[in-house]
């Protein structure tokens, strides 16, 4: 299985390097496209083979651990657990779909375009699999360059501004993280641990072999936090996102929203919190006014409301979806930082959900942009009559994003709110307002685009979705239903891993003992009803 993991990671890269050998001529274009598509499809199919032999209770598995730079204790260590396996699958699924949608929308310098997409796929998979800090950092940074070029070369009119902003924002965050990594390495080597291995370091921090004093934990966590919060993006570090999304080509937006943002939330789960478990609880301010946990939760809630309000006034539908991303990622951060078992489960599921539904929304927006070369909501209206299939898909995906029961978005958001309510009822209450606001702006946008009179003559003759587009969007629409009805399929893997995370995260929480152990039972029965029982009750 290690070999399979290695192949899943590097097959796209190899395919990308293979594309370099194909001559850059018009007649070789079908070969280029086929190589890109089929190598990514093969990667997806291969990644599916990870599922049958995955053992939900085993934690990290399929580990491949070979020395990379022995002098510094850097290892090439990749492995999956119940959290990353879904993110890897999401990643390998979204890439073939993104490549497929690009066949229509990208007409310029296509070879380079597909090479970059394939490089990006390897980098993102690497981020989700890496179990070594340096390896993680290398992959994390490596995602930057392909995305930079994808936006900068194939983007819209303001692409240079957007892409430079995107890179500089991310760079500031990740270089600060590098500072914290260097500091951690110096501390670890002083304690006799010449290693960057994440599980080793986490264990050492947990059992006291590696003592990190409060001040160091606080600042190092803050550096990691900045790197990941910019990626998520958490309010107020989100300003690069609407620009990047609006200017990116459709495939770029799908990948950006679908998986690149997840690298931020995943980074918290994999590194920031387990390595510095005490940091979120350290009181600071003149009289110990606040701790980072509550500040981050508050920022998440502000992001939820702010993102929703700003989305509500957008005239450009792609920008609207981008701001809705800010709001949705706020939910994930809220769930994650409540350090409550149910909420964390919900947040992890919601990471996948958001990748599917927002990725699909960007895809749908791309479809209509290809036809009309505009994304202004006012230019549409009455599309339901002209494009019934498109309308149906848009409806499903939009409702999934709103959080309609029986669709995937509901499960995640409900669990997040349920769990975080036990941690902080006030913030959860405000966050719930965000769910309502999401319904408002999405439904409002939907009404203006699809119902009413056809106001513009150009919209009368729009063609409905063609075969290629149907193939691209259908898997995502089906998944919103499948996950919405049978979330336990995923929780079976997620929960054991997230329990380990919550245990580490709450190990320094003074209130931890007051909170009763909570169990989560999810009925994946025929009716698809979801029931959650909490024997221990709220604190």
């Amino acid at each position: 299985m290690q070999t399979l993991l290695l192949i899943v990671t590097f097959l796209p890269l190899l395919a990308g390097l293979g594309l370099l050998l194909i001559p850059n001529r018009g007649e070789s274009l079908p070969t280029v496209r086929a190589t890109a598509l089929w190598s990514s499809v093969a990667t997806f199919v291969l990644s599916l083979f990870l599922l049958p032999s995955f053992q939900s209770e085993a934690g990290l598995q399929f580990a491949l651990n070979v020395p990379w730079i022995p002098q510094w204790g850097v290892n090439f260590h990749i492995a999956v657990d119940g959290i990353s396996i879904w993110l890897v699958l999401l990643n390998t699924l979204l890439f073939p779909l993104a490549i497929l949608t690009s066949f229509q929308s990208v007409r310029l310098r296509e070879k380079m375009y597909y090479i970059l997409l394939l490089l990006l796929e390897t980098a993102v998979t690497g981020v989700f699999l890496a179990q070594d800090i340096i390896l993680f950092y290398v992959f994390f940074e490596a995602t930057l360059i392909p995305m930079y070029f994808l936006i900068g070369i194939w983007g819209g009119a303001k692409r240079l501004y957007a892409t430079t902003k995107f890179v500089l924002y991310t760079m500031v965050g990740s270089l600060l993280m590098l500072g914290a990594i260097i500091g951690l390495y110096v501390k670890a080597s002083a304690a006799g641990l010449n290693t960057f291995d994440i599980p080793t370091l986490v264990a050492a921090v947990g059992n006291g072999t590696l003592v990190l004093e409060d001040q160091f934990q606080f600042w190092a966590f803050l550096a990691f936090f900045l790197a990941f919060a910019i990626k998520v993006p958490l309010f107020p570090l989100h300003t690069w996102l609407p620009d990047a999304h609006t200017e990116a080509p459709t495939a770029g937006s799908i990948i950006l929203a679908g998986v690149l943002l997840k690298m931020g939330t995943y980074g918290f789960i994999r590194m920031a919190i387990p390595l510095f478990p005490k940091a979120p609880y350290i009181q600071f301010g003149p009289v110990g006014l606040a701790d980072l946990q509550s500040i981050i939760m508050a920022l998440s809630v502000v992001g939820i409301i702010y993102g929703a309000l700003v989305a509500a006034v957008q005239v450009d539908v792609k920008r609207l979806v981008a701001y809705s991303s800010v709001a949705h990622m706020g939910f994930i951060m809220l769930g994650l930082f409540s350090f409550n078992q149910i909420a964390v489960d919900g947040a992890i599921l919601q990471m996948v959900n958001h990748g599917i539904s927002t990725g699909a929304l960007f895809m749908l927006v791309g479809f209509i942009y290809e036809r009309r070369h505009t994304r202004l909501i006012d230019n549409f209206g009455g599309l339901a009559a002209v494009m019934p299939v498109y309308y149906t898909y848009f409806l499903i995906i939009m409702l999934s994003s709103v959080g309609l029961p029986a669709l995937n978005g509901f499960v995640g958001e409900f669990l997040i709110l349920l769990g975080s309510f036990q941690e902080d009822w006030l913030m959860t209450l405000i966050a719930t307002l965000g769910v309502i606001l999401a319904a408002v702006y999405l439904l409002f946008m939907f009404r203006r685009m699809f119902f009413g009179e056809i106001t513009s003559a150009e919209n009368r003759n729009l063609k409905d979705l063609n075969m290629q587009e149907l193939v691209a969007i259908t898997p995502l629409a089906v998944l919103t239903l499948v996950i919405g009805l049978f979330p336990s399929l995923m929780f079976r893997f997620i929960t054991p891993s997230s329990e380990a995370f919550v245990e580490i995260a709450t190990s320094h929480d003074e209130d931890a003992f007051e909170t009763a152990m909570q169990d989560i039972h999810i009925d994946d029965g025929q009716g698809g009803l979801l029931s959650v029982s909490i024997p221990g009750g709220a604190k």
Partner: protein
Amino acid sequence: MILALQSVVDATHLQPLDRNLLIALAPVMILTVTILVLLLVDYFGRRQPGPEGGISLGNASGISLAGTVLALLGTLGTWGWVNTNPDGPSVGLFPSLINAASNGFAPSFVVDHFFLFVCLLVCVVVVITILNFIPFLKRKERYHAELFPLLLLSATGMMLIAGSRDLITTFMSLELLSLPLYVMCGLNDKSRLNKESSLKYFLMGAFASGFFVFGASLIYGVAGHLNYLAIKLAASDAALSSSGVNVDPVLLIGIGLVGVGIAFKLGMVPFHAWVPDVYQGAPTPVTAFMATGVKVAMFASATRIVVECLPGLQPELWRDALVLFACLSMLVGNLFALHQMSAKRLLAFSAIAHTGYLALGMVSGSPASGSAVLFYLAGYTLASLGAFLLITWFAPDGQDDVFLDQMHELWQKTPKAAICLTILLLSMGGFPLTAGFFGKFVVFREAWQAGLSGVVIFALLNSALSFYYYLRFVVAMYMTPAVPGEASLNPQAMPGSYVFSTVLTVGLTIVLGVLPQLLLGALDLTRLGG
């Protein structure tokens, strides 16, 4: 290689000491012989009197290349020979009496792995510079027969300064490396920019030497000697005698002035004002040689001084000043680079910023700081050489520079060269999977271990800033459409020597970025002795 050297030396029937000297100084000796050969061939092979009549470009570059490659092999031979030295992996030469009472001798020149690694780097720099010069001279400039001897002479100085352990030897090497460069900057006597560059460099260099010599004389007054070991002892004695607080101020001023002299040469803020003008005005291959060779040599010397002279002093007495200059260099270099339009000027400011990062590598003053600085220098040298080389090639006729707005759509015209330049610039910025990343990593780790975590954060934020201007190249080459009628570059087919050098620099940049351990083993040996 050792055997080959040994047999050559055996044939000369020298006394053991001299034989060791020949082997120990093989890289320097070989270069010196090459210079003599060049001059003799030039003198006896004159076709006609006057500047045109001397040794032809082909012969001169061929002899120099062969000599440098031999020197490189000689360095490798000496590297092995030093390992077999019975008294530890460093060979002291030219001992001088530093303590008459105890009859204590200290070498004023030392052949150790640190010195040899610098020789290796200098040889690589010279090889690529020669390869850069050949097409450049064919295309642009009038060729002067004295160019290649001057180049090698300067390289000899660069090697010598890395091994010198005495301020006099250091000063001699400093002048040896500088004087030929002043002439080389003014290669084209018709170009006003060349002349300006040459004159500025000369004047600033003269100032720097003045500071250095004055500082050295003050040190001599206190320590009674110019040997590093003697200075170290004097500094420690002074510290001990007055309970560790007050050091003889004259000694401190002396060390400070020597530092200022070196900082001038390095182009550290606030002694950097000459760098952009000189770098931009000099012929591009000379700029590349300056930006890499001089930096390698001067940093090697500075690190040796910090590690071997200053441990006796309390860190507060020198570290704060060094850190301040380092931080200023990063900030000023990066800020001024942001909006430059000339590629050479931009890289000149970026070189100032790199001086700042590099200085952080030696602030710890630990023996390992030598290895950290050398690793960074290796990565920086490769990236800089490659970038300047590509700029030389891009530059249109009648212009010895490239402006960023001329580079539009360059990617379509020369995709491979554009990708190579991108990789080299990313390495300069410190992007993972390039040599620059691990260079920054080791240097910043040194600084962090010295307790300068705040400074490391400052330096990292500066690196983030630097990406803005490195990516401006990318924006220009890949993302900006060319406006019709606008002056843009149309590079000719790339000459073989450029292809070789580009592949070498880019290849090594990536190899060192993926497998830094290839160098780490060798660098572990370059720890400086106290």
